């Protein structure tokens, strides 16, 4: 026969376990996003939750809106394809850290071009879009997924590129054609992005390499 005090203690432990379990509930998902299409969502979120990609892509969308209508439309096709190519290469080939510097410089270059608000020659513009897409796409590569669901992940990154650039190009074109202050707002946006790029580049060149 067990001692009454030991019994009380056991009951208390059981109650405590129930209380602890109740205090730590997990989410119950009707659809499991982490399985099946999980890598697609991972790819979709990767560039839009990383400021080093999101901010230059914002500049690229604003720049696309400043070009002629055919050039703006070229962007919607060229940029996602370049990102797809870049992220596929980044997933299959070893990391290239010099591309990170190129991506940082894209803050300055794209922001500066938006600030100037000048239409670019077709060849130079298309080259810029392709280079930006491949370089940023490469940094979005995911070698860990090679042989797994890499295709889904790449589709996610490409969708993110298409959605972002489409929405931003449309917004930029509306801003520069409709309200009188729109072009000022777009150019101020370019100025802000170039300013952010200047400081972050300085941080990465002067401070980050020396950090432990």
């Amino acid at each position, binding site marked *: 026969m067990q001692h009454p005090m030991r019994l009380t203690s056991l009951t*208390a432990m059981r109650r*405590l376990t129930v209380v*602890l379990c109740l205090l730590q509930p997990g989410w119950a998902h009707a659809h499991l996003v982490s399985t099946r299409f999980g890598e697609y969502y991972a790819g979709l979120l990767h560039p839009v939750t990383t400021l080093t990609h999101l901010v230059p892509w914002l500049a690229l969308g604003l720049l696309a809106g400043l070009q002629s209508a055919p050039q703006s439309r070229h962007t919607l096709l060229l940029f996602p394809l370049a990102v797809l190519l870049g992220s596929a290469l980044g997933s299959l080939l070893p990391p290239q850290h010099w591309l990170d510097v190129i991506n940082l410089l894209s803050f300055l270059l794209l922001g500066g071009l938006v600030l100037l608000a000048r239409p670019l020659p077709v060849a130079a513009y298309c080259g810029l879009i392709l280079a930006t897409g491949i370089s940023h796409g490469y940094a979005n590569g995911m070698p860990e997924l090679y042989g797994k669901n890499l295709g889904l992940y790449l589709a996610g990154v490409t969708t993110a590129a298409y959605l972002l650039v489409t929405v931003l190009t449309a917004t930029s074109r509306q801003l520069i054609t409709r309200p009188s202050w729109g072009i000022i707002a777009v150019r101020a946006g370019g100025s802000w992005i170039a300013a952010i790029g*200047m400081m*972050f580049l300085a941080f990465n060149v002067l401070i980050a390499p020396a950090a432990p």
Partner: protein
Amino acid sequence: MNINTGFSTVTKLLLLAVSLFATPAFAHTETGVAGGLISGFLHPIYGLDHLVAMVAVGLWGAQLGKPAIWLLPITFPLVMAFGGVLGVAGFPLPAIEMGIALSALVLGIMVLFSARPPLALAALIVGFFAVFHGYAHGAELPGAANPLAYGVGFVISTGLLHLAGIGLGVLTRWPLGTQAIRGLGGMIAALGVYFSAASAGWM
């Protein structure tokens, strides 16, 4: 059942339950991208000297009209970023706090008297002080939870403060509004005197 044992169990249970609701202790008060963004965004707003000077830039731009009204807010972030780079690099720029304090004083006076110098001179005055503001923000950047997010936050915040000044500047369309804006300039200049005296150690 022993009453003392019952109390002891309940006490232990309560202690455990309370410990489950403990909030995390961060070595840095802000963390991650959101933390960096928030701290950068709030830096110019919590510093009254930054805040009034940025609003004064917008007010003065509104008083000067086109093209200054759009030229100043577009060029300011770039010159400020140059100051930010000096701050990030730890370049020894003297009298930072005094420079920021004087910016409130000088820009406040410009708004008070509705001064209309040539555009190049106005840009030079604003650009000169932008370096000090940028330096102060930039010096904080390497220690931020997320340096890029911090930079994004303070650039956006600065731009919005300019916009607030330009928005208030719409009042200059009416005679009474013009006087009100000049009065605001006087208040900013008075604050500038206080900040300058404080920076010099007189207060």
